[in-house]
C-alpha cells in the first residue's frame, strides 16, 4: 500500500507519521507543499503540527497551498485521505470536511492521553477496531474544539459519520471526559463518502509500547486491508 505525507512549512508530526506508516509496512513518500502533483498513492496523510505557525487560524493558510488542489481532486475521486490534528484542521479549511475546530474551551494547549471510543467501525479506517472499543490516544492541540451547524451535526449523527468520541475509562461519553469542549465529544469525523477521516488524537504516537501503547496500530491495519 502506497502512502504520501504532505509536508507544509511548520508541519512537525510529519516524521512521526512517516515512521509509523513505514513501521506498518506502507510504502511512504513525503510530498513538499509546493509540488503540483501527487505521486501515485492509495492514502494521503496530512500530518499534525503548526502549518504556517497556525498564525491566522489553524490550518487556514495550508488550506490555500498549491498541493491542496491535488488533494481535493484525489479525495473527490474517492481515494483515502487522513488528516491528523493540524491535518484535520486543514481539511475543514478546505471544505473536504465540514465544520471547524475552535480553541479549546480552557484556552490552553492540551497534551495528554485521553480515552476515545470507536463510534463507527464499518469504514476503511476503523474496520479492525471493535464497535465502541475504547482507545487511549495522545492529544496535543490548542484548537480541537469541534463545531458545526445543527443541520450538519444532524447529518453526522444520522449518517453515522462520527468516527471517534472522547469518553471516560468506561466508555461513557460525558462532559467530564470532553477535553476541549467539542460538540457531542467529537474527536474525529468522516465525510459523507467515508473516504476522508479527520481526527484530533494522534494515532501515530501509539504504535510503540515503549513510548506509549499500541492503540493506534489498528487504524493503520484497517487501512492496509
Amino acid at each position, binding site marked *: 500500500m502506497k502512502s504520501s505525507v504532505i509536508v507544509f512549512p511548520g508541519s512537525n508530526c510529519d516524521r512521526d507519521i512517516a515512521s509509523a506508516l513505514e513501521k506498518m509496512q506502507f510504502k511512504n513518500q513525503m510530498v513538499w507543499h509546493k509540488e503540483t502533483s501527487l505521486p501515485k498513492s492509495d492514502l494521503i496523510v496530512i500530518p499534525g503540527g503548526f502549518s504556517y505557525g497556525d498564525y*491566522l*487560524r489553524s490550518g*487556514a*493558510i495550508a488550506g*490555500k497551498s498549491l498541493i491542496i488542489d491535488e488533494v481535493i481532486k484525489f479525495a473527490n475521486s474517492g481515494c483515502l485521505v487522513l488528516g491528523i490534528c493540524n491535518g484535520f484542521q486543514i481539511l475543514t*479549511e478546505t471544505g473536504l470536511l*465540514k*465544520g*471547524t475546530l*475552535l*480553541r*479549546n*474551551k*480552557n*484556552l490552553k494547549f492540551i497534551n495528554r492521553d485521553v480515552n476515545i471510543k470507536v463510534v463507527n467501525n464499518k469504514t476503511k479506517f476503523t474496520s479492525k477496531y471493535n464497535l465502541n472499543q475504547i482507545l487511549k490516544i495522545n492529544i496535543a492541540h490548542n484548537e480541537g*474544539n469541534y*463545531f*458545526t*451547524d445543527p443541520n450538519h451535526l444532524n447529518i453526522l449523527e444520522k449518517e453515522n459519520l462520527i468516527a471517534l468520541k472522547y469518553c471516560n475509562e468506561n466508555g461513557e461519553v460525558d462532559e467530564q471526559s470532553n477535553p476541549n*469542549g467539542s460538540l457531542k465529544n467529537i474527536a474525529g469525523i468522516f465525510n459523507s463518502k467515508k473516504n476522508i477521516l479527520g481526527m484530533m488524537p494522534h494515532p501515530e504516537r501509539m504504535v510503540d509500547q515503549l513510548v506509549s501503547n499500541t492503540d493506534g496500530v489498528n487504524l493503520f491495519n484497517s487501512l492496509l486491508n
Partner: protein
Amino acid sequence: MKFSVTVTLKKDVLDPQGKVVQNTLLDMGMHNLKSIRQGKFFEIEVQETDPKIGEKKVNEMCEKLLVNLIIEDYKINKI
C-alpha cells in the same frame, strides 16, 4: 489606501475565549460588564486609487483567506 477589517464569531458560535475573558473581568470586579466577544482585526493597505475597487480587493481577501465564513462575520471600513 487603508482599510480596517473586523472579524467576529457568528452569534450562535460558541466563543470560548470571550467567555473566559468575560468571567475573568467579572472576577476582577467589573460588575457592569454585560457581555464581551472577541474577534480579529486587520489593518490592510492596498495600492489603489478608487475606494470602490480597493474595498472590492479587501473583500476578496476576506472571502478567500482572512475569514472563515462558516463561523465568522466581517465588516470592512475605509480608514
